[in-house]
């Protein structure tokens, strides 16, 4: 089960000062009572940004992996890493930003459709390798996965048809072992 928090920068491209960088942090945590709250609470208490946060179980039963996308200058990021490490339940904290890593997000998009616009929407879906997961006389629901840019792009393309609802999972990420796109 993935617990999802909304993305504070709606379009994924918040305007940020130059020395402020976006970082993708991957955390392995003990799957214990209160562990999630402690991490979310830390960001709130210290005033750190969360662009997106996702959490779910891992290959080991008693651990969860969290992916947090956050922003800050070097000093802020250094503190975030240290503070996360300081929490008793965190096993491993990695800033993936300067590593090669795979990042994906899943989005469900419910878009308005009419018999005339439907083929055009289906065509866009195909280009983005998105799937149709629900259909009604007035709407189509698409499922797309990809990196942030791809997800932003499909949303942008569908906008003119009228977006009814969007749900995004937030980004999940893992370090890449093979250097290059697969």
């Amino acid at each position: 089960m993935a617990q999802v928090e909304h993305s504070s920068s709606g379009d994924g491209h918040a305007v940020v000062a130059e020395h402020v960088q976006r970082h993708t942090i991957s955390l392995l945590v003990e799957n214990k009572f209160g562990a999630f709250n402690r991490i979310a609470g830390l960001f709130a208490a210290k005033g750190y940004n969360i662009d997106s946060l996702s959490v779910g179980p891992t290959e080991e039963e008693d651990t969860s992996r969290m992916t947090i996308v956050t922003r800050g200058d070097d000093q802020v990021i250094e503190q975030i890493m240290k503070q996360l490490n300081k929490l008793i339940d965190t096993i491993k904290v990695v800033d993936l930003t300067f590593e090669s890593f795979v990042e994906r997000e899943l989005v469900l998009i419910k878009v308005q459709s009419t018999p005339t616009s439907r083929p055009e929407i289906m065509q866009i879906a195909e280009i983005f390798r998105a799937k149709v997961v629900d259909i009604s006389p007035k709407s189509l629901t698409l499922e797309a996965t990809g990196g942030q840019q791809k997800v932003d792009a499909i949303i942008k393309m569908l906008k003119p048809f009228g977006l009814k609802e969007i749900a995004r999972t937030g980004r999940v990420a893992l370090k890449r072992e093979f250097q290059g796109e697969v």
Partner: protein
Amino acid sequence: MSANKIAPSSKHSSRPMTGAEIFVRSLIAEGVEVIFGYPGGAIIGVYDALVDLSDIKHVLVRHEQGATHAAEGYAKATGKPGVVLVTSGPGATNTVTGIADAYMDSIPIVVFTGQVPLKLIGNDAFQEADIVGITRPITKHSYLVRDVRELAKTIKEAFYIATTGRPGPVLVDLPKDVMAQKTVFDYPETVKLRSYNPVVEGHLKQIKKAAELINSAKRPLLYVGGGVIQSNASDELRSLAEKIHCPVTTTLHGLGSFPENNPLALGMLGMHGTWYSNMAVEYCDVLIAVGARFDDRVTGKVEAFAAEAKKIHIDIDPSAISKNVQVDVPIVGDVKTVLKSLIDLVDPLETSDWLKTIQQWKKEHPLRYATGDAIRAQYVIQKLGELTGGDAIVVTDVGQHQMWTAQFFNWTHPRSHITSGGLGTMGFSLPAAMGASFGRTDMPVISVCGDGGFQMNSQEMATIVEYKLPMKIFIINNGFLGMVRQWQELFWRRRYSHVEISGPDFVKLADAYGCPGYRVEHSSEVEDVIRKALAYKEGPVLVEFVVAREDNVYPMIPAGQTVKEMIDTPAPVDHPSNGVKEESIMVLAKG
């Protein structure tokens, strides 16, 4: 009673027993000597187990805030963790201030709170409070025990986490039904936590870098904090300072880590630090921060703090490093262990010019105050320091008296100075001194309070009298919330807003509790009464010192400013309103 069949010291038993009994046996196994607590409905089962297992002393405080401060005082005075036991809801929320205080000052305490039965959690049950949630940002870690089979392991972990690495408070929430469930007792010998392994040894490469930097220094300065006391590293600190002929300034919590009768001692630095220690910070070329955290009360305007110096920072907590100030050589590790390796790598330094300059500052700007017939708080503290020879545990509250005690006592022992530094909690002193008294009988324990702060937890007088603790309770009565009045005088055009405070007749109050009390109103009587109080060993004694009403703490660097804005003690003036005729100036320079 069946409970007595298994020796209290036993760490294992195959007879199933209740969570309540396991709880008490776990504390015995952990070596706990005293619990500060207060019973109630959700924790009543645990209190029942205390009847049969009476190896642990339980001290019934008069307010749960008193229990947490007492546990802090006990921990600071002994180096052992303090233990608190309270009921759910209001019992638990009353501990919050003490937990926050322990968090800010890195004090190892373990707080056990009763909780409503598991199935009622979240239902707004009677006396339910989400204490784990409430205290999450102010605990090092916390637990809600959901299964009695987890209990012993959780308690072991709680003590381990509270006392290792950078120490701090740990809270364990105990639902009533879990404590009634039964299982076998098996207290773990060791703790294994894959996610928590505090670094003890410093990185050798970093230590070498630090040594190189020190060896190149012309004007080195050691800036040391409570970490030195926490890791029992006073001897190592002294060896290092004496080997490299380096002056030492301490934070509020560092007081006692380096003897102030040593010529290298500069006393406290920061907002109310000595003139010469703040000047030394300004002019040093290598600053060696040891177990200190560059707190804003120390640094003032952070960019200007030791701006010219290369900085070394030794601390057990990686997150304390480069948090407020960027340093050149960070070393994460236990202070004692790191200092030991560092000492061998540094050369004796030639610092005589630097020490001469500092000596000159000491001469020109000593700590000083004027005396007359009206009592000055500084004089009381200076006399107390002289008459005890520094062999005392002094627990201060928050305010002017706290700063004067820091400045004028002449600290010589680690763990002899206890105060609320990070949170600045008024009402801390009386219960914390009480806790210290339970842990230490080798030295007199003295609570020094303002008339405001004393009134915040004065209910603990009853506990103190009940146990006949040989504490000295000194109230510095200026009729004001003195420190706030000082700020209003200096920075708010002397528009006094709600800072005048009255109190009861403190001597009569002491009497009502069954405690001897004295009121002192003239300088000439001070010494005599302190002697009397120190000689009295049968129980507590309270002394009210009626002092100059409007006196200020100097030197002072106003909040967020720099050494350039430092205000030294003004030249003596007559304060007719105070009745102070400033005939003679007492001068005190450290070292």
